[in-house]
């Protein structure tokens, strides 16, 4: 059967195979990442259950902690599970850089828009209350 893992004229992808010893090393890393991801999820849930929202500053920091921990989890999934950390640098860049450009921009635009709409809505109810 014709092989489809050709990357250079008559050569095949070199990293498509590894030895038994490499396998042991890779499996060790997989186990480590698994435990780490599970631990992070557990910590997140505990934070969600025990930290009260009434505590404004504490909750604000918790929210940022959630986002940070999510990014750490995402990083490990992409870099280790999806092997992106082992790929050539140009492949890594073309996959990751778009998010720093478009998603950060979209978050900024979206949340600014949302807050602005909230501002437009809020005065109406305040005026209503005064009128009553």
């Amino acid at each position, binding site marked *: 059967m014709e092989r*489809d893992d050709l*990357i250079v*004229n008559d050569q095949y992808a070199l990293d498509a195979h590894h030895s038994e010893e490499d396998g042991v090393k890779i499996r060790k890393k997989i186990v480590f990442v698994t435990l780490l991801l599970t631990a992070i999820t557990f910590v*997140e849930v505990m934070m969600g259950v025990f930290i009260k929202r*009434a505590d404004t500053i504490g909750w604000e920091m918790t929210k940022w902690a959630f986002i940070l921990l999510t990014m750490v989890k995402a990083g490990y999934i992409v870099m280790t599970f999806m092997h992106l950390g082992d790929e050539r640098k140009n492949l890594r860049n073309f996959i990751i850089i778009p998010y720093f450009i478009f998603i950060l921009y979209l978050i900024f635009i979206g949340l600014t828009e949302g807050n602005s709409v909230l501002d437009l809505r809020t005065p109406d109810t305040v005026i209503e209350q005064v009128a009553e």
Partner: protein
Amino acid sequence: MAGAAEKDIPKKELWGGGRSPFGVTYGKMMMWYFLVSDALTFGGLLIAYGVSRHEVIFPWPIGEQVFEGMPVLGSGYPLMYVALMTFILIVSSVTMVLAVEAGHRNHKPGVVRWLGWTIVGGFFFLGSQAWEWSHFIHGSGGAFKVAGEVTVTATLGSPSSPGETMTFTLKDDDMVFFDGDFGHEYEHAMHAGDHADEGHDAHGHEAHGHEAEGEGHGEDAHVSLENLKPEILILNKYTENKAFVQGAELEKIWKHKGEDTEVFGANLSENEYGPQQYANFFFFVTGFHGFHVFSGVLINIIVFLMVIKGVFEKRGHYEMVEKIGLYWHFVDLVWVFVFTFFYLV
């Protein structure tokens, strides 16, 4: 993994044709292209959720107060079930990496074993999501809307651990929540009442069937709906300052109950949890993700059968497992974000 990826190749040779400049095969490249665009889709959806959440005046439901049910065990387990779902998906992602790793060693039994477990994990996740949806749609007790204005003194917390008292002013369309058991009883009585009404409409033939089926039963339920009165009502069930009322204070609210304003659970036009956008985004985003998991499981099954048949053994490499692995990890990755923004923040 030392390989072509780490070698430093001059730019001229790299982009001069005849080789893959990115050091990956066509199939893997195309999978990455797809994932990049799909990730942007999910990013757009989650940001749209954020926009809605920021522009809504009414308090947004709190994850751990909405999702606190557990199959068999009942309620009172905030976020535990979602955490379990997340764990299942992470584990199935791990078994997938192990399948890919076994593939790199051309070890067919290993691929079969780990890919098999991945499929099992996928089914567990889908089943969990079905339960979660069903729980969300049926709701946990239901609510009604207030008509007019009423001021009550309520106790913060729940009857088992009461806190301080606080005064609430409820206005038109503010929601007041039933206690779980009473809510279900009330919903039953309402539906039984509906059936009795249908019977009275006298559709000739059909109405006969209805009456024969629920004669005494429907009549009973109709009477009991008017007699049904809750012993406890809950305020702010899904938001801050959750409180309950009993006795005389409850009486005040019950008098201001809006006619036909009961809401049980959630659908695309009404929900007991709060702003409508909340339910709509929940259905759309988790549904869209669930559909990805579903197609992922199908693809995994197809490749699983191909592995058993020995297709990749003949081909000499298991790159197909690696490609569907990328897709499966992506599904896990999306869930990590959905989990954070829907349930935690």
